């Protein structure tokens, strides 16, 4: 594993774990996630699931992360989300990505639900909040 790979894959996972253990309060977790370079994704995930039962979504996300992808792999694509400009715009892009997943049969079967891979990864992020 190269140093670059280590920094991009392992470090965020360590940061997430530390954040979850040491700073277990949503606001602090988001800040910790931001420190790990995925804070925008977390903010966007919150916005994406606004009005929904985040606990239920988190449970689904844990199922996804346990059974399908490591947190770092799941989050790799979503780390690219840049919400500094406009969260709403980022959510819209995510919704487009979800549709694109379904159009191209990129489905993730999580607990029986047929979700788009992007959607499942967002649930994975939500499980860390």
């Amino acid at each position: 594993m190269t140093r670059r790979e280590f920094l991009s894959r392992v470090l965020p996972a360590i940061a997430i774990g530390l954040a979850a253990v040491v700073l277990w309060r949503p606001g602090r977790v988001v800040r910790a996630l931001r420190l790990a370079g995925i804070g925008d994704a977390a903010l966007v995930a919150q916005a994406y699931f606004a009005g929904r039962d985040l606990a239920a979504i988190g449970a689904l996300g844990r199922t996804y992360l346990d059974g399908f992808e490591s947190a770092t792999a799941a989050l790799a694509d979503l780390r690219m989300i840049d919400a500094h400009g406009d969260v709403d715009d980022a959510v819209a892009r995510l919704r487009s990505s979800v549709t694109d997943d379904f159009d191209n049969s990129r489905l993730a079967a999580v607990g029986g639900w047929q979700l788009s891979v992007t959607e499942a990864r967002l649930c994975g992020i939500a499980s860390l909040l």
Partner: protein
Amino acid sequence: MLRDAHTLEDGALLQADVCVVGAGAAGITIARGLRGAGLTVLLLESGSLEHHGPAQTLSEGEAYGVHSLSLVGCRMRSFGGTTGHWAGRCRPLDPEDFEARPWIPESGWPISRPTLDPYYARAQETLELGAFDYDAGTLANAAGASLLPFDPARLESLAYQFSPPTRFGNKFRAELEAAADVEVYLNANLTEVVLGDRGAVSEIRVATLGGTRFTARADAYVLAMGGIENPRLLLASNKQEAAGVGNRHGHVGRWFMEHPQQRAAAFAVVRRNLPRLYRLSRNPSRAGRHPGEIPVEVDAALGLPAAVRAHEGMVGMAAFLPRADTEFAGEALAGEVGALVTRGDDEVFQIDLKMEQRPNPASRVTIGDDLDPLGVPRVRVDWEVLDSDRRDIARTLRLIAAEFGSTGMGRMWIGSEAAEYPLDRVWGQCHHMGTTRMSDTPADGVVDADCRVHGIANLYMAGGSVFRTGGYANPTLTIVALAHRLAEHLAATVRPAVDIGLEVGG
């Protein structure tokens, strides 16, 4: 004329130009189709005018394999046959169903869908349906309903028309009673098909449960007793050829097919209003043939287009969307997982699949050692569903789920993520097919393109037993269309020679 075979003397001989055994949808259609053709017709029915009469016991047998096949409950031995309890759902087989599909071994009928289209149109009239048009858009428009906005190249709506349903026993009794060239005998059970010296049937032997035994002779014989009784009687007629009549190549009774119905195969959480065409059976429409006629009722299911099935190498399925059965929905939507996708304005529907099954020689009708009260071996049915069919269930559901997500219709929950779908919720639909399958050559089936048994000049099969593949559509419309076609063939080929009548003795 309509008579009770109990009134015949023991040893009587009946003669006609054409003898049709079985007065169900196929048999009655053939008898009616031969009226006015200059032929005399003998129509023999195992039951009486009464539903669930004593003849029902003759349907008893042993069922293996998929657990839900009901030998007695599915089949009605009475004048009108199983139309006495059918629901009336109609749709033709798709054109692709008649074609050879490399991913479905033993597919490919000797006839094409266009060959059958004129007879489908006649069948529409027989079954009191609208015009022969199953375009979903046309029927939705006629019903004043909308279609789901799926990309038709990925997921299409499958339209159905409903027969009232036509109860053949009630609908056509008076006509056949009044017909001078048709003689109907009730309580007349075929017990043996007898071959003559010239490779043709010389006579058939018939008995009543009351003990009367008699013989019928004709220039042509049609067995129209259904997909289980047709092979049973051919196999049981084994005094001259040990394998049974028409069974030199071992196909009689094999290739038994149903339309496996998978209830609650999945659930759909729908975030838009589901058009009523999918919610309700029997949406009134203006698709009646004539002004002022009772509107034809229609509904729709969802299915993968033929091109998708070809690309994926899958059998056909129709996905129906009834409101979720709470018994099943509880499992799907329980607890926190359900909370993700359900909101107050979401509606939950279960997905019931009705599917084609691949022809399978191990799925078969045979005869056992037990005899019925008339001395005919009782039937054994081993209904088998291939693993490849089960795999197609999950694959089909995933493709439907993708389209639900893509269009924003909602999300789907699929109960099994296993590669092979379980059969614990599979029901049969009383659609018994394939057991005297149609083929170009004797080595490949039982009947030819005219429904004539290969190698036997004057013996024909009618009904679902001649289906080479079953498609996913309910079979009655196709059965009646094939019966119209067979009647036309018989009218053109059977030489009128015999005045209908009763000869005592013989």
